[in-house]
């Protein structure tokens, strides 16, 4: 029990919580301060997560280091803004105000989240599905591979961000435009990687399948696909980050709601507390999605190359 309570992160937690809850704020005099309870809840959530990780995680030292760093950063933020009022309030809002945004604009943020996730899921899964399917078919057919691969290579080098504004203008609705942008953002690289992976697949696996007299369909989807699955899943987190990036970029141009749009509109109106809250939210969502991929990988893949 002792090791869960007596450590640096917990000391910082107590200092931070006490400071936020009881010390007078200097900002109060000049600027309207939001209620502190949202920030306090956030701090408690961090503490709960820290204790959970400390109990279940493997590397206790790293967990403590990370938590200590997080608390130190929050403490510094709190001191520099609301307690000592050293930074310009308008550009660096107090954490109380930033976290209160989640209370005040919770519904807006959630509706943006729902919209972004919808576009993301549509574009991401379509790109993954067609990229892998076509990649396996093309990679398996030498003539097709030789003809298509150089072309795909060219396409995959062009970042989708570059033609995002054009697609937003071109497509009838913003939703179709951003789905297309996300699709193109990862389709070419997925296709290229899959073609490449099929080409460099362990010959012994192919030979074993051949000597079992498998039909082409079985070879492609019961041998090559499961063999490539760990690599595909490994590439998911990178692809996901690229998708979110392209989606956010698209949202900067033509959306009416969405996670990236929330940040962009807040910056436009100089609501930096909202902007920072939006950025924190995107970070949390991305981290959650990435952990989801890791969990899925652990459940699906029980073997190594």
């Amino acid at each position: 029990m002792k090791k869960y309570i007596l450590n640096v992160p917990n000391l910082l937690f107590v200092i931070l919580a006490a400071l936020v809850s009881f010390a007078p704020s200097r900002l109060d005099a000049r600027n309207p301060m939001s209620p502190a309870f949202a920030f306090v809840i956030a701090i408690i959530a961090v503490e709960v997560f820290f204790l959970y990780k400390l109990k279940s995680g493997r590397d206790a030292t790293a967990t403590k280091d990370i938590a200590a760093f997080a608390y130190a950063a929050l403490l510094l933020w709190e001191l520099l803004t609301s307690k000592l009022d050293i930074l310009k309030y308008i550009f660096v809002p107090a954490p109380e105000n930033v976290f209160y945004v989640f209370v005040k604009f919770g519904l807006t943020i959630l509706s943006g989240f729902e919209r972004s996730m919808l576009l993301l899921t549509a574009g991401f899964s379509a790109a993954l599905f067609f990229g892998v399917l076509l990649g396996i078919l093309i990679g398996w057919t030498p003539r097709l591979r030789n003809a298509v691969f150089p072309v795909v290579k060219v396409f995959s080098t062009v970042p989708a961000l570059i033609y995002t504004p054009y697609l937003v203008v071109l497509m009838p609705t913003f939703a179709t435009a951003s789905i297309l942008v996300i699709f193109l953002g990862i389709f070419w690289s997925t296709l290229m990687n899959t073609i490449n992976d099929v080409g460099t697949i362990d010959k012994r696996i192919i030979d074993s399948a051949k000597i079992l007299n498998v039909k082409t369909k079985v070879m492609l989807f019961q041998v090559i696909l499961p063999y490539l699955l760990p690599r595909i899943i490994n590439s998911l987190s990178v692809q996901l980050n690229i998708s979110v990036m392209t989606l956010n970029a698209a949202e900067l141009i033509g959306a009416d709601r969405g996670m990236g749009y929330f940040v962009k509109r807040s910056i436009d109106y100089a609501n930096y507390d909202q902007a920072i809250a939006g950025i924190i939210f995107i970070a949390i969502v991305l981290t959650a999605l990435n952990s989801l991929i890791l969990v899925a990988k652990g459940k699906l893949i029980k073997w190594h190359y």
Partner: protein
Amino acid sequence: MSRIELRNLSLAYESENKRFLALENISLSIESGEFVCVIGSSGCGKSTLLGVLEGLIFPSSGEALIDGVPITGTGPERSVVFQHYSLFPWMNAKQNVAFGIRQVNNASKKEANEIAEDFLIRVGLKDFMDKLPAELSGGMQQRVAIARALAVNPKILLMDEPFGAIDAKTRVQLQELLLSLWGADAERKTVVFVTHDTDEALLLSDRIVFMGPRRIEQEIHVPFERPRRESTFFSKPEYAELRKNLVSLFYRDVAQNIGGEEVLI
């Protein structure tokens, strides 16, 4: 019926501007039900020869026939056990064997599973059916590979140094397992077994085909009666005589390859 015949077979690997002759003018016939070991030092072309029989590599000239029909690819009458990594790592032992069965006959999943279980029991893996290959030892993996090869009831069994990476004690067990499974069939399968182990070749085969670089150098008849058992087999004087001949062939071959200067035995 499953007679193998090779006629004036040559095979060259060709890359952009190089041509490497792997097999040169090979003629060989293997009778139905015969157990033949192909033996030779590394790089002599014995695995290439087996690749032709597997239907994975094609000769540059000459013919490879099974019951008079040229080999044009892999076929359900032939099964193969490779040295390494022939099991699918994402399937457990039973799934691996059942997968093989379902490619050649129209067995339902349930029937295939039953046949797979039966064969896994016969190779002594009753308690390991649900294990992935990575969870099995090398010897157990080869047992699964043998079960998968036999479960489709092939007429010809092709084995490419199947016990080459197995420790000596396990290898003996696997050799005896192979002999007992092969001997148990009423109509014996034709076996072509590639190895570089002289003892293994003498224990297993009816005939040893000794390969020098690219060519068959000598065919040696192995007259010992079956069933052969490791324990009694190696003490026979005829065995010692044959082994001496075979080993001397090996070293003569090595001596020729490196100019005959560095062999100090």
